[in-house]
């Protein structure tokens, strides 16, 4: 705290010598309490964001300290939300830092009874192989005599919390691969 404890700071002494005769306020305030400040004041950075739940699009201020999110609250500048958040938006910090989040790739082999660990790099390579194989296996140039140039070996269902840029890359890649069964929560 940087404050030396001296006899002069004993609460009782402060109580008797100061104006807080009954010892209910200034005299009893601990050094810790006296020096409290909001943790957001010590954030390394404030990052502007948008709530990931519904489509109102409330502004969020994300506070970061030592590479970790320490607080998420409403952005008062937003003309949409004026700094306010609903319970879900207010729970955003638990959403992004909570104990339920998974941080490791899990793999279940065909007919397997349990999860296995897998390196991300290996998983990416295996998925790329499967995309190529399924695409080819279910490829069709024609249907009913008409050119279709497509595969039914790849389908996709995306959530609507995907960024526009992510949806764009998904649609672009899938279309180039010839996948048409590309769908989104927007249908659901």
């Amino acid at each position, binding site marked *: 705290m940087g404050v030396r404890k001296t006899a002069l700071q004993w*609460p009782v002494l402060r109580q008797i010598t*100061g*104006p*807080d*005769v*009954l*010892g*209910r*306020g*200034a*005299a*009893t*305030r*601990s050094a*810790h*309490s006296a020096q*409290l*400040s*909001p*943790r*957001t*004041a010590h954030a390394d950075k404030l990052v502007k964001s948008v709530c990931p739940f519904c489509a109102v699009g409330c502004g969020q201020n994300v506070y970061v300290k030592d590479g970790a999110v320490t*607080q*998420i*609250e*409403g952005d008062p500048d937003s003309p949409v939300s004026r*700094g*306010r*958040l*609903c*319970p*879900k*938006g*207010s*729970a955003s*910090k*638990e959403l992004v830092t909570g104990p339920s989040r998974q941080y490791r790739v899990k793999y279940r082999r065909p007919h397997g009874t349990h999860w296995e660990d897998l390196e991300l790099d290996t998983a990416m390579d295996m998925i790329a192989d499967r995309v190529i194989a399924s695409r080819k296996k279910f490829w069709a140039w024609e249907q009913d005599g008409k050119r279709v140039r497509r595969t039914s070996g790849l389908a996709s269902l995306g959530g609507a919390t995907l960024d526009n840029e992510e949806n764009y890359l998904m649609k672009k890649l899938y279309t180039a691969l010839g996948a048409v069964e590309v769908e989104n929560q927007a249908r659901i």
Partner: protein
Amino acid sequence: MTSFANRLFGPLDPATEAGYLDPPTRKGFFTDTSVCIGCKACEVACKEWNAVPEDGISLTGMSYDNSVGLGASTWRHVAFIEQPSGAREHPGEESASFRWLMESDVCKHCTHAACLDVCPTGALMRSEFGTVVVQNDVCNGCGYCVPACPYGVIERREGPKDEPAVGLAQKCTLCYDRLKGDLEPACAKACPTQSIQFGDLDELRVRAKGRVDQLVEAGVSDAQLYGHDPRDGVGGAGAFFLLLDRPEVYGLPPDPVVTTKALPQMWRQAALAAATLLVGSLAAFVERRNR
């Protein structure tokens, strides 16, 4: 200087009274339940900011209220009251008397706070903003404050010893740390409809008066303020409410009185007893010396 009696009962400015020289204006909450949508953003925002732990995952059946009431791990609590209608003779007709009331409850930050008055360690403290704050680094978990609160707000946190603040008295601090940084409390900031308003207590009281007059004029005859009056049993609450019905309907005590109101009298008697004892001891001492 106010009399000793006034210091424990009746109107006063608590921060000045608590020894702060030139404190900021008294801060508080005005919770206008007439615009509360029962979203519970206040509950979550409070918990996220103050790192208050989850308070149990179980269905209560009390309408949409599953956090039951204020406690060590629920510092804001939204009450849901489904006010039944009479016998419905015409199915489908809107029953004029059916209402779904919602109210976000919180520590009242009393002008005369019994929790603080009985705290033997000084863990409960009046802040410069006139609010009542628990200091975890001082609290020894004696629990004297728990029965003292006329609203049943403060509670000792239960749980595994290694969890934060377990065993210590816990309640709303009106985001003391945020106030010191010129920020509004987390609950008031999140509230989507400004049901929870934070600000200078004097100004909030004026605003609340205007709002209740407006509602009464609009025909909401039961609209009433709760905890706004400095002459009430706790000297006026720092967190007061606009209710749409009697306080009991929301589970609030209709006429709370600071439990230490009688303390001066008790002290006077205790002082007399102590003096008698002292005189007796001195007499004995003198007697012995004289022997």
